C-alpha cells in the first residue's frame, strides 16, 4: 500500500499549492540558468556568426567587445597584401539610442564591409540582405521595426530591407546592420550647428596664425565637408576581420601580423575567450552565484515543507510504529512525497518557463543539458531536504500515539 500517494490524495489542495510554490521557485532557478546562457549567447553571437579567422584590432587592446578599439580603414588593404589572407573587411560596432515613433530606440549598429559583405550570413527571416551601399539596414525583430519602415538616424534616413531573428548585442540590444560607411556616418553624425561653428572656428584659426594669408585656399576648404579636409583624421573601424585562404597556416599569418607594431591580432576563439573572461565575466559569475543561492533556498524551503508535513503526521507515524511498520515504510512515505514534490515542481517550472521565458525582455536560453542538470539537482535536494523530516520521523516513539 502506497502511503505517500494516499496522503497526497487526502491533502490534495495543500499539496498542489505547495508544489506550485516550489515550481515557481524552480522556474526562477531554471530562468537564472537561462539568463546566464542567454548572456553568453548574446555576447558571443557576433563573434561566432561573423565567420572570421582573425580579428585585427588596435595595438594592445582586447578588441571591440572589451574596450574601445580604433584602426584605420586603410588597414584592410594592408592586410589583403599578406600572403595567406583571402579577404579583409572592416568591422564597425557601436550602440546608439535615438527616438523613433516617439519612443526611445536603442540599436547596436554594426557595419558590414560593402561590397564584400552584404550580410548574406545573417539569419534573415524576412526581406533580404543589403543591396545598395547606402541608406539600407537589416534590423533584428527585437527592435520592433517593420519591413520597409524608414528610420531617421543622424541626417540620413534608412530603410529596413531585412529582418533577423535573435541577433542581439551583449547588452541585450537588438542589432542593425548597415554598410561600414553608413555605420560610420551614424557614429560620427554631427549636428548642423556644430558643423557651422567648426567651419567658423577654422577660418578664425587660419586668420589668427596667418596661414590664410599665405595659403588662401585653406579658407575655401574650411567650408567643405569635414570628410574632405585632408587634415581631418580618416574614418576608423573598430576592427578588421581577416579570412584566410584555404590551406593557409594560421600561425604563420599570425606571426606576420604580430610583427606589425600598430595592431594586435586575436583569433575568433581568442576573441570569444576575451569576451567571456572580460566584459561578461562578472555578470556571469553574479548570475551563477545567484542561481546557487536560489538552489540552496529551494532546498531549505523543501526541507521545511517536508518537516512540517512530517510534524503533521507524528501521531500517524507513532501508530505505524506501534503496528510494527518497518522504518523503510515510514522513510518511503517521506522520501516518496519529497520526490513527488520535486518532480511535479520541476514539471511546473518547465511548463511555466517555456511559456514565460520568451516574454522576457532579454533572451532566456534553456538548453537540454541545463534541464538535465537541474533535474538531477532537484532530485538531490528532494532527497537531501527530506533528511530533516526523516530524522524527526525516526525520533517518534510508538507511545506518542497515546498523547
Amino acid at each position: 500500500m502506497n502511503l505517500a500517494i494516499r496522503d497526497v490524495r487526502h491533502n490534495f489542495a495543500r499539496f498542489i499549492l505547495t508544489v506550485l510554490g516550489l515550481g515557481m521557485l524552480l522556474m526562477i532557478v531554471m530562468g537564472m540558468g537561462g539568463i546566464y546562457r542567454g548572456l553568453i549567447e548574446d555576447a558571443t553571437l557576433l563573434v561566432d556568426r561573423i565567420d572570421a579567422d582573425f580579428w585585427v584590432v588596435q595595438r594592445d587592446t582586447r578588441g571591440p567587445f572589451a574596450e574601445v578599439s580604433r584602426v584605420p580603414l586603410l588597414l584592410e588593404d594592408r592586410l589583403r597584401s599578406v600572403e595567406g589572407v583571402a579577404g579583409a573587411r572592416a568591422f564597425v560596432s557601436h550602440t546608439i539610442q535615438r527616438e523613433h515613433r516617439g519612443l526611445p530606440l536603442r540599436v547596436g549598429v554594426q557595419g558590414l564591409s560593402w561590397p564584400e559583405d552584404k550580410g548574406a550570413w545573417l539569419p534573415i527571416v524576412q526581406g533580404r540582405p543589403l543591396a545598395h551601399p547606402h541608406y539600407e539596414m537589416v534590423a533584428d525583430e527585437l527592435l520592433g521595426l517593420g519591413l520597409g519602415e524608414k528610420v531617421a538616424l543622424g541626417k540620413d534616413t534608412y530603410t529596413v530591407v531585412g529582418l533577423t531573428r535573435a541577433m542581439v548585442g551583449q547588452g541585450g540590444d537588438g542589432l542593425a546592420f548597415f554598410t561600414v560607411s553608413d555605420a560610420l556616418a551614424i557614429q560620427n553624425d554631427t549636428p548642423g550647428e556644430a558643423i557651422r561653428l567648426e567651419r567658423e572656428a577654422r577660418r578664425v584659426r587660419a586668420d589668427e596664425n596667418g596661414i590664410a594669408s599665405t595659403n588662401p585656399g585653406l579658407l575655401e576648404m574650411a567650408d567643405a565637408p569635414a570628410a574632405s579636409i585632408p587634415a581631418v583624421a580618416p574614418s576608423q573601424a573598430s576592427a578588421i576581420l581577416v579570412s584566410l585562404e584555404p590551406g593557409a597556416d594560421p600561425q604563420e599569418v599570425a606571426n606576420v601580423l604580430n610583427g606589425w607594431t600598430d595592431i594586435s591580432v586575436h583569433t575568433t576563439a581568442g576573441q570569444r575567450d576575451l569576451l567571456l573572461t572580460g566584459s561578461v565575466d562578472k555578470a556571469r559569475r553574479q548570475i551563477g552565484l545567484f542561481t546557487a543561492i536560489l538552489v540552496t533556498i529551494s532546498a531549505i524551503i523543501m526541507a521545511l515543507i517536508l518537516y512540517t508535513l512530517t510534524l503533521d503526521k507524528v501521531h500517524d507515524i507513532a501508530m505505524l510504529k506501534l503496528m510494527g511498520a518497518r522504518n523503510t515504510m515510514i522513510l518511503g512515505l517521506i522520501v516518496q512525497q519529497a520526490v513527488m514534490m520535486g518532480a511535479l515542481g520541476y514539471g511546473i517550472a518547465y511548463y511555466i518557463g517555456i511559456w514565460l521565458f520568451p516574454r522576457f525582455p532579454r533572451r532566456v536560453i534553456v538548453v537540454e543539458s541545463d534541464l538535465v542538470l537541474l533535474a538531477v539537482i532537484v532530485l538531490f535536494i528532494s532527497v537531501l531536504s527530506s533528511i530533516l523530516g526523516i530524522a524527526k520521523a525516526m525520533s517518534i516513539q510508538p507511545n506518542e500515539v497515546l498523547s
Partner: protein
Amino acid sequence: MTRSVPAIEVQDLRKVYGSGNTEVVALDGATFALAQGEIAALLGPSGAGKSTLLTAIGLINPPTSGRVFIGGRLVFEGSRAAVNVRTFRRQFIGYVFQKANLIPFLTARENVQLCLEINGASPRKARQRAMELFEYLGIAERASNLPHMLSGGQQQRVAVARALANRPQLILADEPTAALDSFRGRQVMELFRQVAREQGAGVLVVTHDHRSLDVFDRSFEMIDGKLAEATPTAAAPTEAPAFP
C-alpha cells in the same frame, strides 16, 4: 502457543519516573497472569498506573524492573527487551485505545488492510480479511469511508478490527468504550470476550465502565501503582455471531 501457557504473565513489575525528590512510582511490583482465552478488566482511579501497566505489557513503554512473559516467552527483563519488540508487537499484540487513532488519509478498510500488509499479508488477502472483520463488526458499508466520515463508534469499531486483524495472542485495550454510548460500549466489550473465547487470546481492558463488568472473567484493581485482584465476575452469555 498452547492453552496451558498463560497469554501474559507479569512478575514484580515496577515503573519509576524521575529520580531523587522527583521520583514517581507508577507501578509498584505488579504481579499477575492471564490465561489464554481469558478476559480481564483493569480498574482504578485516574493516575493509578493502569495505562502504565498496559503500555509496559504492550512493549510500548519499558518497565524499570520486573519481568514480562507473553505466550510463555520472556519479552522484558527489567528495561531490557528480550525480543525484537517491533516484530513481537506486530505478530502477537493488538491495541485499542480510547481514541481510535486511525490514519486519517486511509479509508476504514485500508487502515485494517495496512496492519495486515505490515505483517506480511498479500493485499488481496488483507482486503478479504478486513472485509470479514467489517462484516462481523457491522461496518462493512463504511469500509470505503475516510475516518472523518465515520462516527466515533464506527471509528472505534474500525480500531477494534485493526487490533483483531492479525489474530493476536494478546489484546490490550485502554478505555476502548470511553467514546461510545452504553449500547455500543457493551457490544465492543462482548466482542472482546468473544475473541478471547474463540481465538484463545488473552484480553486485558482498562475501563471505568462498571456496567460491563459482568463481561469479564476477572477484574484487577490498581491503586497508587499497586495491583490487586478484585472479586471474580461471572461471564454473561453472548448473542454475537461467530468470530471470523
